[in-house]
């Protein structure tokens, strides 16, 4: 059954082609159903292939299959094939990409209702799914690059899908420019690997002897530049918060669950070329990003921007895991994050939909009554991301924090950063849940929030189950329960093993749960309290809360707020400015040489003559 692997990417491609030709005839809602059917079929194909793969012997590399379609780019000694690599890592990625993808397709049927470019939206979604699967299944760096560019292109199209909004067009452009920097890293890394190892095929790279330390580190860092562009790490993350201009299902699928994790996938795939020096850099940047983005999230009012910064922060966790050598933990978190973040985004979409395109959390409140299903599922997503056991997020986050703790050089420091981030995450997510679903109604009377249709709530329920129980795929309680770890193990050059004793593990887990609970408590005490000041049922408790609230307000309201504001400003001025500045530098260079293009023939002739003179002098006197 493993031979069917080609079906997995081809089904969405087929859907794309059908929609391309007949999209405008199908109209709403048939176009959406066609796209959803192909995405779902792709998921089923993935399940079939998975069953086939599990039936194979897991020893001696028995679960790695390469299917070469044809030789794509023969360039001298280098032969690049168009082929698929089926192994535990790619099937794991494919499983949640198609699964979550199919659910989001279904959700979009209701969400995009009434949009004038309805069928075009699903066309892009199917094309995106195809590109993403090419990225995952490619058997060499160049095919992955093809998917890499493909998801990028779909991402720009989808961000600027509502391009009549000026901000949407700008956001699309920003995503394009930032991503090109990452692509540049990818290209150079590819060529560097080829010139060092003579191959770009994953299986051959995995069996190649190690590169020299300097080359290895350079290649690793270039790969990280590529990953940082796609997966929104410092300093290339700037495009992701702006990408929220796209429709919400896009935010859920492209900018939370799938595409942004492709950087993580790339690094895990290339795990045997990553050097220790590079890993340290990756860990530090990952941890910094996690903390930085969490700080940013605290100061946001837009329901989607909170989630966007939260995504950046969670991606930072994943890179922290990679930097600590815990690749399984990274992939584990990729999966659980896909579940709960897709859930949260879709939930926020449902809220936005129900509130008639209102995104400001200050104008929401008490929505749990009007939107019970959305509220309940959103709360499950919140518990998962906040790291409350036994929800999925707890298990993966706990593993990452443990890995950070055991990091050789600066382990405890990384752990502390991770812990603070966990606390902040719990805090800002609780704040969001309280502002949106609890407290007073803060919307105008002419707004009538309502629960969304079944096509939208079904994916929410499915994802809620996954977000609640997703941790089950890799439970550390019993060794045999580490299903994901055992499944992925064969692809790693140096399998990572935790060295801490059980007592340490439990202590760390307790501390991280405590951090999460503290974060939630702060949020509850401050935000709930602020909204119900006249509640006299629990005066004692209230008084206490007042105390916490005021001290909290002293920290957060005084220097704290300034600090958050500063962080947000830093984001806007310096980092954004950096990207714009680069563009401006290119423009300046252009303006410098622009006057040579005067339009006067005599000036052109002088240019030719001077150029000729220069070449003549250089060649005749052998200056070069």
């Amino acid at each position: 059954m493993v031979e069917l692997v080609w079906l997995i990417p081809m089904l969405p491609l087929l859907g794309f082609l059908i929609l391309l030709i007949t999209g405008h005839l199908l109209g709403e809602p048939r176009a959406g159903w066609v796209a959803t059917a192909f995405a779902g079929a792709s998921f089923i194909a993935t399940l079939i292939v998975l069953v086939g793969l599990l039936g194979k012997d897991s020893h001696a590399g028995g679960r790695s299959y390469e299917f070469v379609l044809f030789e794509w780019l023969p360039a001298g000694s280098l032969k690049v094939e168009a082929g698929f690599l089926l192994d535990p890592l790619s099937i794991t990625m494919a499983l949640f990409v198609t699964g979550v993808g199919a659910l989001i397709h279904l959700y979009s049927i209701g969400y995009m209702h009434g949009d004038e470019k309805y069928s075009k939206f699903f066309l892009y979604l199917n094309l995106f799914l195809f590109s993403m699967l090419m990225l995952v299944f490619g058997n060499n760096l160049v095919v992955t690059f093809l998917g890499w560019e493909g998801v990028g292109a779909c991402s720009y199209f989808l961000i600027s899908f509502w391009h009549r909004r000026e901000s949407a067009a700008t956001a699309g452009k920003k995503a394009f420019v930032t991503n090109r920097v990452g692509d540049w890293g990818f290209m150079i890394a590819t060529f560097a690997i080829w010139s060092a190892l003579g191959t770009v095929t994953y299986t051959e790279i995995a069996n190649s002897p190690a590169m020299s330390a300097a080359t290895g580190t350079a290649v690793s860092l270039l790969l990280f530049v590529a990953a940082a562009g796609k997966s929104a790490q410092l300093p290339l993350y700037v495009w992701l918060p702006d990408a929220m201009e796209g429709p919400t299902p896009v935010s859920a699928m492209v900018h939370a669950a799938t595409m942004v994790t492709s950087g993580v996938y790339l690094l895990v795939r290339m795990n045997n070329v990553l050097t220790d020096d590079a890993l340290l850099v990756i860990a530090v940047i990952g941890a910094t990003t996690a903390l930085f983005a969490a700080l940013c999230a605290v100061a946001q009012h837009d329901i989607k921007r909170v989630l966007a910064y939260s995504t950046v922060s969670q991606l930072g966790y994943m890179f922290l895991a990679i930097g600590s050598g815990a690749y399984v933990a990274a992939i584990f978190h990729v999966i659980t994050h896909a579940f709960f973040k897709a859930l949260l985004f879709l939930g926020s979409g449902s809220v936005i939909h129900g509130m008639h395109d209102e995104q400001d959390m200050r104008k929401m409140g008490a929505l749990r009554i009007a939107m019970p299903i959305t509220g309940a599922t959103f709360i499950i997503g919140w518990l998962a991301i906040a790291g409350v056991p036994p929800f999925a997020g707890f298990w993966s986050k706990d593993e990452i924090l443990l890995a950070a703790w055991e990091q050789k050089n600066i382990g405890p420091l990384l752990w502390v950063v991770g812990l603070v981030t966990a606390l902040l995450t719990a805090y800002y997510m609780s704040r969001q849940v309280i502002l949106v679903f609890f407290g007073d109604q803060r919307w105008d009377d002419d707004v009538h929030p309502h629960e969304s249709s079944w096509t939208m709530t079904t994916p929410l329920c499915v994802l809620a189950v996954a977000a609640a129980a997703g941790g089950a795929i890799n439970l550390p309680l019993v060794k045999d329960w580490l299903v994901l770890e055992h499944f992925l193990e064969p692809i790693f050059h140096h399998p990572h093993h935790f060295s801490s004793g059980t007592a340490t593990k439990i202590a760390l887990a307790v501390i991280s749960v405590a951090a999460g609970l503290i974060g939630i408590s702060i949020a509850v005490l401050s935000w709930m309290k602020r909204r119900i000041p006249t509640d006299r049922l629990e005066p004692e408790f209230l008084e206490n809360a007042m105390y916490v609230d005021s001290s909290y307000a002293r920290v957060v309201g005084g220097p704290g707020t300034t600090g958050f504001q500063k962080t947000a400003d830093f984001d806007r001025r310096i980092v954004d400015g950096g990207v714009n500045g680069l563009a401006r530098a290119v423009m300046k260079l252009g303006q410098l040489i622009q006057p040579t293009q005067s339009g006067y023939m005599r000036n052109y002739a002088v240019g030719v003559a001077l150029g000729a003179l220069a070449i003549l002098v250089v060649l005749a006197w052998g200056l070069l």
Partner: protein
Amino acid sequence: MATQSVLAFVGPSVNWWALLPQMILLGAALLIMLVSALAPKQTSTPFVTVTTMCAAITSYIVATGLWNDVQRDGPSSSIASAFGIDGFSIFFTMLILVALAATALLSHGYLDKEGIDAPEFHALLLCSAAGAIVMASANDLVVMFIGLEALSIGLYVMIAMHDRRQEARESAIKYFVLGAFSSAFLLYGIALTYGATGSTNLIHIRDYLGAVVFRDQHLLMAAMALLLVGLSFKVAAAPFHFWAPDVYQGAPSPVTGWMASVAKAAGFAALLRIFFAAFASHRIDWTPIVSVLAAVTLVVGAVMAILQNDVKRMLAFSSVSHAGYVLIAVQAATDQGTAAALFYLFTYTFMVLGTFAVVGAMGRDDDHPLANYAGLGRSRPVLAIGFTILLLAQAGIPTTSGFVAKFQVIAAAVNNKNYVLAGLAMITAVVGAFMYLRIVMAMYVDNEEQKSSVPSWHWSTKVVVIAMVGFTLLAGLVPQFLIEFAEDAVPILIRG
């Protein structure tokens, strides 16, 4: 003595078969002129187009036969070794014929629309094509020069023929004067080469340079420098590119497409023949300066393109930067590099012809502000998708031939350990991509007022665009056949 030599004179043997492609084109040109002179009423645009198309197709079939001969029997040269019958020359012959057919089709709709005389235009086009083929197959510098001039004179007049437009005249004059200026450099270079090596025949030059060690190579170096200048002008490499934006902008769009594809391809054919093949033994001397040219061209092309607001000027600078990529392949001075250059030029021909087909169909050929393209995605969705693919191909996005071409070129540079140039090529690809994206974005931004101004498109334009897009995708997905084609074309300069 004199009488004796007259009696003893034996002309060189002529391989007529090998000359057939050019002869067919010239015959068609004469036929068109003759018919239009004798029966001016009957010489309608369709007749002329059909004649040119037939000539191109017949010629292509002959070239295919020649290709098979060469692949079976090996390359040779003919007529006192002045003409190369090798894979290289036939490769370029085919490229030029494809461009000829596409340009003939494109001009079909264009000439009627703009009121230009079809017979003369097509006669000049055919002469220009014959000149380009002569230039690409010449094993002799004098032949090469004459081919270049025939190519150029046809171009000058084709640009100027649009007599109601002042810009066309202006750009023709600019191109003519600067072209003559650069031809003088080329001619001087040929003279100095003769002085340094005693021959204008490239095979003799190669053998001579391979056998002789110069004590003083100033003369040879000066010759190389001047040849390089003359040909750099033709391929629009910086700093000899100044004419390109003005001329591209002023010229009628089908002619711009012809100029961008064929003049560049023929120029690079000559450059490769002279430098890669004939000056092979002195590659240490010329590769550094070509690398510098490549670097300057890449940067100027990419950076200047961003600043433009006129689509034709943008595309002119993009053509400059494409010249930079081909120069990277040239400076590698290896078989791999040359094959990469051939691949690049072949795929580029398709991209640029399709691109200018779209540009030419965008209303009156006066100016092409970016705003004119707003809303094209809505009013002409299929062609807008085609244009998008062609632009993305020029930007080098995977699954298009442009990606494979850039990949091959950079791979050649990496193989040659020229990492700086490879890195620079990647950076400029990133910068340049922004310009193409601007055009694509403009097409898909709705603008209500602009919708009505998009004219209906002639069927010939659609045929050309679809064919060019199809090939661009085909060569991007399964480039194997074209890569082998380019590799088989590389052995050149064999004594016949």
